């Protein structure tokens, strides 16, 4: 479980996050949604420790990330897997080496054990046949799958996915969403997905936070987000023609 309490974050004079409070539930797919520029990614980067908030607490099962020392922070980070928007795979390493990287750095596994673990993870995301290729030689969707394999190779307790569907076609997006959902259940991870894609929200969202102008504006689940009367949320949810048609169909 990750608890976020009273988080404020500014860049210079501009305050991005205002008093954010939320609990990311254990073993569930938690979603942060909101418009572009609402502060979703900044919040996610605060939670994983890439940005330091001015105020508040970020509690990983009660351990406060902000006040802890370097060594403790390092240990917590080994429990975190992250899927970045662009994949963030290392260009100079092959697919296999990318996935093996965290094992090489932080475990005492033998080469054979590492290869077996990497093979298992690549197989789990259905990309084992591309293991000898470089990231530039595979498609965007494949890169995302490799990044997921790298994120789960250390069996993390927490998985963060920043815009996992950006730049992907609808079919590949669904595959990635399904993969995130399945892995969350399989590894009993606390997963946090940052997105503005309503399809993803409806596919995998179990515990949703809607950020509006840097504030936690609404929380709920994927059923309640379709029926809420909150103006900002409905404006966001039903901004696409597809979602408006869906609403009309339900109302009929």
């Amino acid at each position, binding site marked *: 479980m990750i608890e976020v309490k009273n988080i404020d974050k500014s860049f210079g004079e501009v305050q991005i996050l205002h008093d954010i409070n939320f609990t990311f539930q254990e073993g569930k797919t938690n979603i942060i949604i909101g418009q572009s520029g609402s502060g979703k990614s900044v919040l996610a*980067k605060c939670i*994983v*420790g*890439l940005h330091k908030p001015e105020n508040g607490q970020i509690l990983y099962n009660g351990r406060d990330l902000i006040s802890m020392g370097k060594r403790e922070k*390092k*240990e917590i*980070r*080994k429990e*975190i897997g*992250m899927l*970045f*928007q*662009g994949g*963030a*795979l*290392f*260009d100079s390493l092959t697919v296999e080496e990318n996935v093996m*990287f*965290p094992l*090489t*750095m*932080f475990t005492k596994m033998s080469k054979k054990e590492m290869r077996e673990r990497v093979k298992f993870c690549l197989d789990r995301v259905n990309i084992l046949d591309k293991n000898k290729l470089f990231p530039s030689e595979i498609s965007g969707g494949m890169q995302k799958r490799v990044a997921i394999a790298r994120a789960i190779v250390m069996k993390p307790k927490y998985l*963060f996915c920043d815009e996992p569907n950006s730049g992907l076609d609808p079919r590949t997006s669904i595959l990635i969403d399904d993969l995130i959902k399945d892995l969350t259940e399989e590894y009993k991870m606390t997963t946090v997905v940052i997105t503005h894609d309503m399809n993803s929200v409806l596919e995998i969202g179990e515990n949703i936070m809607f950020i509006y102008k840097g504030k936690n504006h609404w929380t709920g689940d994927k059923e309640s987000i379709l029926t809420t009367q909150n103006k900002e949320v409905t404006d966001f949810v039903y901004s696409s023609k597809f979602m408006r048609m869906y609403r009309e169909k339900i109302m009929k």
Partner: protein
Amino acid sequence: MNIFYHIGRYTEMLGQMFSKPEKFSVYWNRLMEEIYQLGIKSIGIVVLMSAFMGMVIVIQTATAIDSPLIPAYTVGFTTKQSIILEFSPTIISLILAGKVGSNIASELGSMRVTEQIDALEIMGVNSRNFLVTPKILGTVLIFPLLIVFSMLFGFLGGWFACVSTELVTVEKYIYGIVAFNNNDMMYLTYALSKTAVFAFIMTSISAYQGYYVKGGSLEVGKASTRAVVYSSVLILLFNYLITQLVLI
């Protein structure tokens, strides 16, 4: 942003770089890779530049000496002094600042804008230590060796000019190089030491420019340019300071 902000952040980067590595074997491999990428792969350009400069120095010196009172071996002696004291350590370092500096800044800048550095940090890897330290250590270790190569090929270039132009005999040229060698070891130590300092300057400045890039590919390009310009200016400044300290 003011200069003190950059000096502070640069110092912080250097401080973070020298923490204990996560896994020594991984860092050793990274060091070897950087020595190959930044040093061994630069041998070609160093050899080419040095050989041609050696040829030109011999021709220019030989044609500039008009007086019959100045002995012919002066050409060899002047070539040796020019190459050891200034051409190899400073001019080659400036050339390497262009090649290696832009390479480092663009590599780290690209890693920054594609979130690869963030990915390292999330995994718990000290990214400054992992990415920058092997580059600095690699160049500080390998560049003096490159400069020794540069000196040798500079002398060879001079020899070739003697043979092809017959402005000076090879015997006189070689005599000029090997004679009057009282200070040669001191000059060689001075040249190689200042090369190590230049290597540190160009690598750390370029790494700083690349590591802290914000924005996109346009910013990466600007960072590469800044890396080369700032490194070159600082190399010239430190060249003057070291020379004044050591030789006066």
